[in-house]
């Protein structure tokens, strides 16, 4: 039933199709990719698109199409893991804060405020300064800095129902806390969780691409799209295709995840708008 409503929106449909295509490419990358994404051919560096290399080659002579294809895998892992981390902790903090209230809630919310104080960029630099650059550190940095937002939303959504009658009745019957949380609260905020998962997906992907562009995330020779932008930026005047193509794909993916999130929100819980 809800699918029909979702599909009614053309933009959501478009977004879902794009995401499915990219998922397909990510799964079947080794079969679809014409070349090895890390193989360098220096004599052909910065080559413009040709028949054999439809997206041209990067500053090290690597085929850009192959790097885009394998890049979908990196981007998916980045997005899903990052979103999972921020959603997971956000949900736990949010539900507990809303359900138990009082001191626990204050502690959790103040902790969350501490996290909120760090812009993700600064937090990423901190992690990198301590532990060295790396894709996982970038994912952690972004995911952790997104936790406050999710926590607040989930807490808000939970507060809406935590004092409702059926929760009280459940408690009256003798259901223990865990049961209430998992069976009742969680299920009821699940629509919120789904919506925010999609939105977090887009934020994490964009954030990690930005950090990789700055050299703080993905390390060479990983075919991550943000890192490709970093490697291409010195040649904008003579070989813009090396920057434009990964950029377009980042935009496409992030936009699709965002639109899907919006569409889901419209369908699942118009009250959230």
């Amino acid at each position, binding site marked *: 039933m809800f699918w029909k409503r979702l599909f009614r929106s053309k933009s959501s449909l478009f977004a879902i199709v794009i995401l499915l295509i990219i998922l397909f490419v990510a799964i079947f990358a080794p079969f679809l990719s014409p070349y090895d994404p*890390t*193989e*360098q051919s*220096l*004599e052909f*560096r910065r080559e413009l698109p040709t028949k054999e290399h439809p997206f041209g080659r990067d*500053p*090290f002579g690597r085929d850009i199409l192959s790097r885009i294809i394998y890049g979908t895998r990196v981007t998916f892992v980045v997005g899903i893991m990052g979103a999972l981390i921020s959603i997971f902790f956000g949900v736990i903090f949010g539900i507990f804060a809303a359900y138990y209230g009082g001191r626990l809630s204050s502690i959790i919310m103040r902790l969350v405020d501490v996290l909120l104080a760090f812009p993700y960029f600064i937090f990423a630099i901190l992690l990198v300064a301590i532990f*060295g*650059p790396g894709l996982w550190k970038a994912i952690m940095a972004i995911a952790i800095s997104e936790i406050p937002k999710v926590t607040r939303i989930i807490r808000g959504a939970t507060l809406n129902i935590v004092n409702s009658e059926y929760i009280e009745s459940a408690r009256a019957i003798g259901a223990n806390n865990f049961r209430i949380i998992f069976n009742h609260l969680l299920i009821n905020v699940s629509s919120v969780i789904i919506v925010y998962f999609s939105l977090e997906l887009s934020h994490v992907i964009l954030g990690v691409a930005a950090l990789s562009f700055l*050299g703080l995330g993905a*390390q*060479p*020779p990983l075919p991550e799209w943000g890192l490709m932008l970093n*490697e291409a*930026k*010195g*040649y*904008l005047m*003579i070989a813009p295709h090396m920057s434009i193509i990964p950029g377009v794909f980042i935009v496409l993916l992030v936009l699709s995840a965002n639109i899907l999130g919006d569409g889901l929100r419209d369908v699942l819980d118009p009250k959230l708008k």
Partner: protein
Amino acid sequence: MKKDFKIFCIVFVFLLLISFNIYADDANPEQILKVGIGTDIGTFDVIKFTSSNDMKAASLVFETLITLDPNDLGMPVPLLATSWKQINEITWIFNLRKGVKFIDGTPFNAAAVKFSLERAITALKSSRFQGMIKVVNIINDYQVEIKLKEPSSSFFTGLSRQTASIISPTAVKKYGEDWFKNPVGTGMFKLEEWIPGRYVAFTRNEDYWGTPAKLEKVVFYPIVNEDTRLMSFKSGEINVCEDLPAYEVPNIEADPNLNIQIQPQLRTIFLTLNTLCDTLKDIRVRKAIALAIDKEGIFKYVMEGIAPEAKYGLFPPQILTKDEPIGYGYDPELAKKLLAEAGYADGLELELWVPEGRYAKGVEICKVVQGQLSKVGIKVNISIMESGSFWELTSNYDIDKKFQMLLIGWLLPPDPFPVFLVLFNSDSNVNFSNYRFPGFEARNILASRTADKDERDQIYLDMDKEVVEYVAIIPIYYGAMIYGVNAEVQEFAGHPMDYLLIADTWIK
């Protein structure tokens, strides 16, 4: 409405007229040299230089006793010293130039020389001050006697470097801790204003003892990003651009308003290998790494054919003449064989560290090396670090170093002694290769005491060959500074030791 419009028109025309006067009169152009450099100046304190750009700035405000002829680097040229005489193996007498004043009015004399040189020796812990000076004695106001610790062929090279600049003793006392940003010297220019991260501005020293400079003002603009620097140069915001990206050279040469000057520099970029760490201690592994790197490919495709391949070991032919190449060529098949022999048939993993933005195309070279080594089964993990942290983490005296391979560059004085001393000595904090052979160190000292240049050079040549064949280092390219020079700038040149020769420069 009509009245407002009239007022608007008047103001507009007025502004328009004013704007035409902002442009300098072409018949009498402003004599300002605006240089875009890669990294910011750290300090003017000659004993605490953080990079060759500090020395570049210092060379405008300070002078040394002698300087080296850029066309014949073995030849000392009088500067603040007019003549000199050797008394014995370790003693020299220098006659100082009369009538020279520091910009604060203090007279330049023997006391200033003694102060400056002795300050340099006592302050530096490592043997960076390549003068081996023991003491400076004042004979009279314009004569000093310099005694060395032991005979040294690199004495004059040491005296010519900015670390041996003659500084005003009164100023050092007066400014104390703020001395590093208030340089008082005898040079052609004086520091006018320094805003870190924005610019360093110098004005002409009108009381200079010699022929004053033609330029009225020199400004260094630190622009770290090479594309931004290039854009500044193309738009005319700066009239000299250092480290111009090599791929832009044909475009700049095609532009009638812009020129290219390529100055070979005495700086070699090379990989250092920690010869005592587990993965690299087997020489077969190191040889394999050397054989797997296509240096000619790097020269052609990364350096765009401009900075020459380092075929002749650590020292370029301008310093030590060589007939044949030193080191290992490019043979990935042999590399794989050697790795298998050493027990790494299944490949191995290595860490390569590089400081960001410090060396032209340094990061690109690391990525190319990563790609080339992966073809023989070696997985390279690159760590691109901020310059300051890089040097902090790698400069230590430990045998147990935390790094394996580094990509670094080293400015080479025309005399090899100090370089061998700091790069391959057990008591040096920059012995990145962990090269610890007492016989080697002894030969270095022997060479510096050898009076005959050919004999000396032969010893150094053998030492160069030795470190390359041991694969303590893998030289990649010899530096060549690409200057973008606006056509209006006349008689500009760079010195092979990375400072500017602008005594005769003027703006057309």
